[in-house]
């Protein structure tokens, strides 16, 4: 195992973390299931590479712009589908994801089904780490604000959210928008890391994989999503020696976790500095003052 290989796995894990963070906002915090996020990822990937390679925009700008294009498309899709209830929305996203893939398969401007080769490699571990940190912080701050609380209210009890004045439709649209931007950015990074884009990369399997990661990590937990995206990207790599059996083991691991911990790895809780200090037995600031108060 050389460093080049390990770095590659870590970069892929980082890219998956970004996509899963976005989906976590939609599924974990707002309670909407989507099986079309690979579609947003594809839009972000192709737009970013188009901005970067055909229009000559700088790398970071084109990746973020690609994310925004995915976001804009989500606004359009959201207007059409977010008035639908639960399962219907889920099916609509499934159709959307497949439609995007088929459109890209047949539009020759971007290479069609043969793909888009020769994209320069511009993503390294540092880039992905920076995108990850920004992505995690933004989501943390959003969730701990009135906007995040309103999204959680939509997940918990939509009717009650309405009568306490929360515009549930608007928050669903915002949540879908932000999650599509995350997916789009992840797509752009993937394109610039793989140096090759093909519609086949963004099929239903990819969308399903991300939804599994969100649930595996635990609904409504940012650290759970990060952990799950990391574990479920690294695990199949570690199982390479099992050849064809590795995805059987992968599937079995997912089933095992769902039976043993139906609430997911983190079960709606977060890993916090205070929590880690507690486990390690380091007294926190609050506890210190409480102790000196007793004396």
């Amino acid at each position, binding site marked *: 195992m050389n460093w080049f290989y390990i770095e590659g796995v870590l970069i892929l894990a980082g890219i998956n973390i970004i996509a899963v963070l976005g989906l976590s906002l939609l599924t974990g915090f707002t309670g909407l299931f989507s099986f079309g996020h690979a579609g947003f990822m594809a839009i972000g990937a192709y737009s970013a590479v188009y901005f970067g390679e055909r229009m000559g925009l700088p790398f970071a700008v084109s990746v973020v712009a690609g994310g925004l294009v995915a976001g804009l498309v989500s606004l359009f899709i959201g207007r059409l589908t977010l008035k639908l209830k639960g399962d219907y929305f889920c099916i609509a996203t499934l159709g959307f994801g497949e439609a995007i893939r088929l459109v890209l398969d047949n539009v020759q401007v971007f290479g069609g089904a043969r793909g888009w080769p020769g994209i320069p490699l511009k993503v390294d571990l540092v880039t992905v780490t920076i995108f990850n940190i920004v992505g995690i912080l933004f989501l943390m701050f959003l969730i701990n604000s009135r906007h995040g*609380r309103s999204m959680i209210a939509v997940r918990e009890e939509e009717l009650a959210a309405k009568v*306490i004045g*929360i515009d549930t439709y608007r928050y669903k649209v915002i949540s879908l928008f932000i999650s599509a931007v995350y997916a789009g950015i992840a797509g752009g990074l993937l394109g610039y890391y793989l140096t090759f884009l093909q519609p086949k990369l963004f099929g239903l399997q990819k969308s399903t994989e991300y939804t599994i990661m969100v649930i595996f990590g635990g609904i409504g937990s940012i650290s759970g999503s990060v952990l799950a995206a990391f574990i479920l990207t690294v695990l199949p790599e570690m199982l390479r020696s099992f050849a064809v059996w590795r995805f059987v083991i992968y599937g079995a691991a997912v089933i095992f976790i769902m039976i043993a911990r139906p609430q997911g790895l983190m079960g709606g809780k977060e890993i916090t500095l205070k929590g880690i200090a507690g486990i390690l037995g380091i007294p926190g600031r609050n506890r210190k003052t409480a102790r000196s108060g007793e004396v």
Partner: protein
Amino acid sequence: MELLRLENLTKTFGGLTAVKDVNFTVNEGSISGLIGPNGAGKTTIFNLITGIYKVTRGAIYFQNVPIHDKEPHVIAGMGITRTFQNIRLFKNLTVYQNVLTACHHNADYGIFDAALRLKKFRRQERELKEFAGRLLELMELSGWKDKVANSLPYGLQRRLEIARALALKPKLLLLDEPAAGMNPDETRQLMNLIRRIRDEFGCTILVIEHHMDLIMGICDNIIVLNFGKKLAEGPPEKIQQDPLVIEAYLGEGGMPGA
């Protein structure tokens, strides 16, 4: 002064008329009761006022502004909120989070204020948290602050739902059977609580209830519904004597002295 006015309010579901030509007004600062046998259309009227159902015919005015064509969250933003007959809390959130979520109308910072932790966000968020804490104290829920809503005893869940509604600083509070499932002692406490809310929060209250002690004890004005129509309206003494009301509740042979 008049706060809420219903004009010829009608709601039909297919061929069924749930509410038919109901007229009444609710005065500011009053406690009004909405009573009637099961299926009389009481909860339907609540759903119409809060915009959950669309009005078939007629009109609803709140502070002389028509609200019958508005979305529920807009109506809530204007100062009308409610509790539900079957409690609808954010079950998996803590007591504090339930109330804090409902405080959002008292702040106006945007998503980017939050993402960048700007001064506006920090100041308003501090105010929201202080307000939520004060509200829990007033409602005597401070001791349960970090408990998950679902784990609370039934009576406290009802009180938490009222606390959550009060977080909006409403002008009109609609209570849908707040005493359902409560024993006489808890009902008495609830009566005092409703009076206290009216006095301390300065809001007007409209309550649906089957416990007649509660209705007769606290209401200034009572509206009686039967089969979707208004049967009678007036102060408790008058309603208690009304032959039509007695008939609706007890049947024709149930007339006292008959």
